[in-house]
């Protein structure tokens, strides 16, 4: 196995050179890229474990390790973090599920039925979602001010109102994505079920919904992540601190970095991010599949 000592050196150098030209430089770039990608995350993790509250105090990475700032974040009576977390989960889960369901209903109709106005409907869906809802934030605010006078339960400062606003976008790009996927399910399945006497509702709920589960998961997860990040409308609609979502609350918390309790914020950020990151990493195969299906389709 071992070559004679005389030839080792030049051969190895040549081999290293070739290795570097071939794959070595790839490792260099990948390492630099990875450092760029994870360094802010390492920083926030370190800051969250450091009990010292200020921004400067967080600069020495992992100089101290304690869970004090997590406790501080969860017990500070001025910062209803647990409530924010709960609100965010309610909004993102309820909206995410409803969005997927309403979108799937529409995608089923567009994919399986032929009716007048179908093409116009599909085009409208694609075009309307070009104009993001947040552009209409002023009108949304004024509309909900009026609704507050009539129906306080869905007016300003309510999670239900926020959910309704978000659901306005349920027929959007998601439906279009699902529509493409529904089209790949063979129609023969529906027809066979129809011959057996199943109605359209039964076909939809018991056959189609199960077969399109992968795309529903992808759309649901992407909507969920998008909803967790939505600030503009949530900040306008939700006024009381205990009604707010994580994004609104945490942003206000560090609006002045000089005085902010930076390690408590970092602890809050880590607690908010970890569930999302875990779900994402677990499902990343499907997400990548969904994204690239979209990418290679057109």
């Amino acid at each position: 196995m071992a070559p004679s000592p005389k030839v080792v050196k030049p051969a190895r150098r040549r081999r290293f050179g070739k290795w570097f030209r071939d794959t070595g430089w790839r490792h260099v770039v990948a390492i630099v890229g990875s450092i760029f990608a994870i360094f802010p995350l390492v920083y926030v993790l370190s800051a969250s474990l450091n009990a010292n509250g200020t921004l400067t105090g967080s600069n020495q990475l992992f100089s101290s390790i304690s869970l004090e700032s997590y406790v501080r974040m969860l017990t500070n009576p001025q910062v209803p973090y647990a409530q924010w977390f709960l609100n965010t989960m309610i909004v993102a889960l309820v909206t995410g599920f409803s969005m997927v369901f309403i979108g799937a209903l529409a995608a089923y109709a567009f994919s399986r039925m032929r009716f007048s106005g179908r093409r116009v409907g599909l085009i409208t869906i694609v075009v309307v979602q070009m104009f993001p809802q947040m552009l209409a934030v002023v009108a949304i605010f004024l509309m909900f001010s009026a609704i507050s006078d009539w129906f306080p339960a869905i007016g300003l400062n309510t999670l239900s109102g926020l959910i309704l606003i978000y659901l306005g976008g349920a027929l959007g790009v998601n439906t279009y994505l699902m529509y493409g996927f529904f089209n790949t399910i063979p129609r023969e399945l529906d027809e066979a079920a129809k011959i057996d006497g199943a109605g359209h509702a039964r076909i939809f709920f018991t056959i189609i919904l199960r077969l399109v589960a992968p795309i529903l998961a992808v759309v649901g997860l992407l909507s969920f992540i998008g909803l967790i990040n939505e600030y503009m409308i949530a900040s306008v609609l939700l006024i009381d601190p205990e009604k707010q979502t994580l994004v609104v609350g945490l942003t206000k918390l560090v609006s002045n970095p000089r005085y902010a309790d930076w390690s408590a914020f970092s602890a809050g950020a880590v607690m908010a991010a970890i569930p999302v990151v875990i779900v994402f990493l677990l499902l990343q195969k499907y997400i990548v599949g969904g994204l690239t299906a979209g990418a290679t389709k057109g």
Partner: protein
Amino acid sequence: MTDTLQAETAEKTPTPRQRSAARIADAAGGRLRWVALKIALLAIVDAVALYAVFVLFLHNEWLVLTLVTAVTILVNWIYFSRRAIPAKYLTPGIILLVVFQIFTLTYTAYIGFTNYGTGHNGTKDQAIASLMRSSLVRVEDSPTFEVTVVERVGELGLLVTDPTDGEASLGTNQKPLEPVDATMEGGKAVAVDGWTSLTFAEVLGRSTEVEQLAVPYSSDPNDGAIRTQDGQKGYLYTSTLVYDADADTMTDTATGTVYTDTGEGAFTSESGEQLLPGWQVFVGFDNFVRAITDASIRGPLIAVTLWTFVFAIVSVASTFFLGLLLAMLFQNKRMRFKNGYRIMLILPYAFPAFLGALVWAGMMNKSFGFINQVLLGGAEIPWLTDPWMAKFSVLLVNLWLGFPYMFLVCMGALQGIPEEVNEAGVMDGASPWQIFRRIKLPLLLVTVAPILIASFAFNFNNFNLIYMLTGGGPRFEDATIPVGHTDLLISMVYKVAFTGQNRDYGLASAFTILIFIVVAVIAIISFRRTKALEELS
């Protein structure tokens, strides 16, 4: 095996009659369940609608009431009819889309043509009432009214006993006094049906609300209002302003100045002084004219529009090329540790973006941030406070947020390009760079073009990044609107509407209309080029 199976089936095989009976029962059972579910859901919808109609009736909102009724009838028809099957699937989404997206967009367009905003956020009647209430002074030698503070669903009212004839009447901030049948106690009205009388302790607890009560004496605002300090005794207050309904003028009795309605949504004196609050009026293209002619708005508007395009284009290009570069690294089959790198590289995509932006904002802080303090050894680089550095920082952070997505997409797209392309290129003596530039990149661009367009659209309105990282700052020094060097059009709309001393909904909506037009033009052009809509069959 087969024998036992046959035996079992033979044993259980029902007669044809039994089988058909079972099938009918099964089908009927299933259908009944569906029908029951459908009726239950529709009953909920109808109950909610009925409640809504009732509330809207109380508020005299006839237009909305009619719409709610019409939609409810339509929904019932759709779900009970045996036809209209596609509508059964589309109705929920369409109702939500129309109410919460199409209506709000249309309403935005309307607000853009009004003066809606701070000082102009109600009707003319509300403005008159509010002006008169804000300039009330107590009438000297006015009689003392015995009053009781009453409450109904959170709204306070005054139960007033007239000192001359002892008659009781009731009114609120919005509704002038009207005679009522009240329970009297020692010549003082103390309670009335439908209202709860507040105890002394409750009055003390809500003293600010009680002090703000000003119940109009009659429907003529010039008659003044009854106010109370302690919830026991009330006095007549009249306004120093006198409203003349015939001439439509406000006169200040103290100075004698006459304010007239000049059509601008506020009473204006001859010297141009306005009484605020005013009211909401249609102002046509005033907001647009102001945006174009007022130099302190036009300058920022142009700068922000240009920056929005630069930001969106550079963001798409930088994230795409970094993502592509990393994706191409992974094409090498012999490379080890690929999965590890991949997980690390997509982590920024999994981390909620708003948190990412906030963390970067902390790290880039000029005096205390990690980058200046640790990485650069105490350098005071104004990452977020210098106009040019702030723009660079925004692009850098967006690169961090956006490249993992492009990396994933490019990996998928590269796998779709067959290996033969590469081999053919090598056979023809092309260099790797030539193969990439002339063959692979064009093939790749065809597949990722829709994603690049979507990414452009997303970044064009990337409110979160700007708002969380720089807050749009550093601010333009010569602007009258609270806008800064890194603001995008969308964050400019938000700030004009919701931050600063004056909320100018009209101007913000006018900006929104401008964005609509820009987005629509981009959408039409990009659709033409990708022919995405032609695929729809």
